[in-house]
C-alpha cells in the first residue's frame, strides 16, 4: 500500500460542458485549488477529458494552474460513466494526487463517487469551504470540508483519512481567480478504452431533452402572490412572468380561497416549503404561516404597498409600491 505522504498535488476535474466550454464551476474550483496548492506547497493540476481537448487549454491556463493533463478523443465528447471512470481512475493510480476536487454537476458527482469507490477513499459532497488542518499528529495535512447536512440545518466538518481526499463543490461556492503561471506544463495522455465492455446501449438517436416541469419545493426561482394583487387577471400575470423566466408560481392561502390559484401551489405551514435561490413576493402581507415556507430561500424580495408589511422583516430587498405596477414593469422587460 502506498504511504499517504507519497500522494501529492491538487487536482481539479475540469469538466467540459456540452462539448463547447469549460464548466464555470470547474473554473471557480481552480481558484480555490490554487489557494490550497499554495498552502500545501504542491502543484495545481487541471484534468481535462474531451473531444478536441486542446481548444480549452488557453482558457484553463488563465486560471492559475501549474499543469494541465488532458485526453482527447471522440469517445470523450459526452460524459460516459464507464469510460470516464476507467480513465480517471487510471490517472489517479499513476499520479497519486493528495486532493481531487470535482464540480458538483451531473457528471462530476457521478464520476467522483465512482472513482472514490475504486480508490477506496472518502468523498465529501457539496462542500462549502476547505481548510488545511495541522492537528492530525501525523505531520500530514488534511483538508477539512464543511458541508451542509440535514437539509441545511447543521454544518459538519469532515476529514478524510485516506488519499486522495476528494470532494464535490457546487456552483457559486468559490470565486473564479484569474492568474497565469509562467510555465504551465501540458501533458497529453493517450486514450485507451475497450468499448466492447459498454453495458448501457443507446438505442436510436437521442434528442435534446425536454425538462420535466419542476416542483415548487425544488424550484430555483419562485414567484409568490397574495391577496394584494387584487384580481385573478393580475394574479395570472405571475404565471406569465414565470413562463418567461423559468420560474414557478406559489402563493399564500388567500388566493386559493379567492380561486386564483390551485391548492398545490400554497407555500407555508399547510403548503410547501421552498428553498429557492430567489423568491419575489407580490402583494403578500407576510403572515408567519407563509413566511415560514419561504425562509429557506437564499434571497427574498418583497413588494407591498404597506411600508409596515411584516413581509419586509423577512426580506433582503423591500419595495414599497403597487405590486401590480412592478409586475407589469417586469413583464414589459421580459417579454420584449
Amino acid at each position, binding site marked *: 500500500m502506498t504511504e499517504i505522504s507519497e500522494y501529492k498535488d491538487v487536482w481539479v476535474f475540469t469538466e467540459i460542458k456540452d462539448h463547447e466550454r469549460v464548466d464555470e464551476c470547474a473554473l471557480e474550483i481552480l481558484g480555490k485549488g490554487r489557494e490550497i496548492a499554495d498552502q500545501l506547497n504542491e502543484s495545481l493540476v487541471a484534468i481535462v477529458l474531451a473531444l478536441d481537448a486542446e481548444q480549452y487549454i488557453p482558457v484553463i491556463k488563465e486560471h492559475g494552474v501549474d499543469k494541465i493533463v488532458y485526453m482527447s478523443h471522440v469517445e470523450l465528447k459526452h460524459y460516459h460513466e464507464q469510460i470516464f471512470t476507467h480513465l480517471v481512475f487510471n490517472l489517479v493510480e499513476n499520479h497519486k494526487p493528495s486532493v481531487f476536487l470535482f464540480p458538483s454537476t451531473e457528471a462530476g458527482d457521478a464520476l467522483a463517487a465512482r472513482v472514490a469507490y475504486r480508490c477506496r477513499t472518502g*468523498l465529501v459532497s457539496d462542500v462549502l469551504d476547505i481548510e488545511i488542518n495541522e492537528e492530525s499528529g501525523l505531520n500530514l495535512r488534511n483538508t477539512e470540508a464543511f458541508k451542509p447536512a440535514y437539509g441545511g440545518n447543521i454544518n459538519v466538518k469532515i476529514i478524510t483519512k485516506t488519499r486522495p481526499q476528494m470532494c464535490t463543490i457546487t456552483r457559486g461556492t468559490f470565486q473564479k481567480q484569474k492568474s497565469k503561471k509562467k510555465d504551465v506544463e501540458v501533458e497529453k495522455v493517450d486514450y485507451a478504452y475497450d468499448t466492447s465492455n459498454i453495458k448501457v446501449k443507446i438505442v436510436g438517436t437521442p434528442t435534446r431533452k425536454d425538462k420535466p416541469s419542476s416542483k415548487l419545493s425544488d424550484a430555483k426561482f419562485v414567484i409568490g402572490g397574495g391577496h394584494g394583487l387584487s384580481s385573478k387577471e393580475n394574479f395570472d400575470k405571475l404565471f406569465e412572468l414565470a413562463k418567461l423566466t423559468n420560474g414557478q408560481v406559489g402563493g399564500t392561502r388567500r388566493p386559493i380561497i379567492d380561486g386564483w390559484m390551485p391548492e398545490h401551489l400554497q407555500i407555508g405551514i399547510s403548503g410547501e416549503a421552498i428553498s429557492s435561490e430567489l423568491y419575489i413576493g407580490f402583494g403578500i402581507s407576510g403572515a408567519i404561516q407563509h413566511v415560514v415556507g419561504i425562509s429557506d430561500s437564499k434571497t427574498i424580495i418583497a413588494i407591498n404597498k404597506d411600508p409596515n408589511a411584516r413581509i419586509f422583516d423577512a426580506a433582503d430587498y423591500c419595495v414599497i409600491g403597487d405590486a401590480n405596477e412592478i409586475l407589469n414593469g417586469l413583464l414589459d422587460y421580459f417579454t420584449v
Partner: protein
Amino acid sequence: MVKIFVLIKQVPDTHNLQINRASGTIIREGIENVINQDDFHALEFGLNLKEKYGGEVTALTMGPPQAESALRECLAMGVDKAIHVCDPIFAYSDTLQTTLVLKEVFDKIKDYDLIITGTKTSDSSTGQVPYQLSEALDIPLLTDIFSLDIKKNIVACHRNFGHESQNVEAELPVLLRVGRHYNEPRHISLLGIKNAFEAEIEMTDHACLNSPDCIDGNMKSPTRVTKTEKPEEMKRKKEFLKGSTSEKVQKLIEIMQGHSIEKIWIGKQHL
C-alpha cells in the same frame, strides 16, 4: 419473476434540529425518525413495476434497530418483504463503508434483478451510494429515468442524460435511481398498517456476510465527522429600494440577473 429491491433509509425529520453545544452532536430526543422522502418515490416505482410485471418487492435498509419502524412502513405501503441490515459494527459507516456492506449483502442475496434507490437522503445528502454500489456490484446504474420496460432480461428505458433524452437498453441486473418527479407515492392504507405489524423482517448482521473483514463503520470509514455546528442564522438585509417605479423595476431586474434569471428563449419572436 422480477426480483426488485428498494433501498431505503430512515432519517431524522429535518425540521427544528437542535445541536448539543457541548458535544456538537444532534440532539435526537424528541426528533421523529421518518423514511427519507426520496425513498418513497423509489418504493412507489418498485411497487408499480411489480404491478406491471409481477414479481416481488423487498425493502432493504441498513441502520440501527429503530429503523425497523421504517421497514414496517414499507410493508404497510405494500412491499412483500423487508430486510434489515443491522449490526453495531456498521454504525458510523460513511458512504464507502455503506457501499461495502451493501455489496456484501447483495453478494449473499445473489438473485436480484432491479435495485432501486431514491436520489438523495435528507440527512447526509451525499447521493453517492447509487454510483458506488453500481461500481461495487459491477452493474449499470440508470438515473433520471421516466419510463421503463422489461423484456426477458433486458430493461429498456427512456432517460435524461446530460442534455440529451435517450432510449437505452441494459441487461439485468440493473440499478435504478428514481427522481421525485415521475410518480406520486401512494398513501398507506389502514389495512396495510394492520398487516405490517404481523409481517416478519429478515435480519442481516455482520456474521451473515461472506467476507466481512473490510467492514468496520467506525474504524475503517475513510471520512470522519470532526464537528457539527448550527449555521449562523441568516440575517435578512431588509434593504429598501428607492426611486420611481421604473427605477425600482430596473433594480429588481439587476437582482434577478444576479441570480442568473435571464430572458429565456421562447421561440421565433426573438429572432
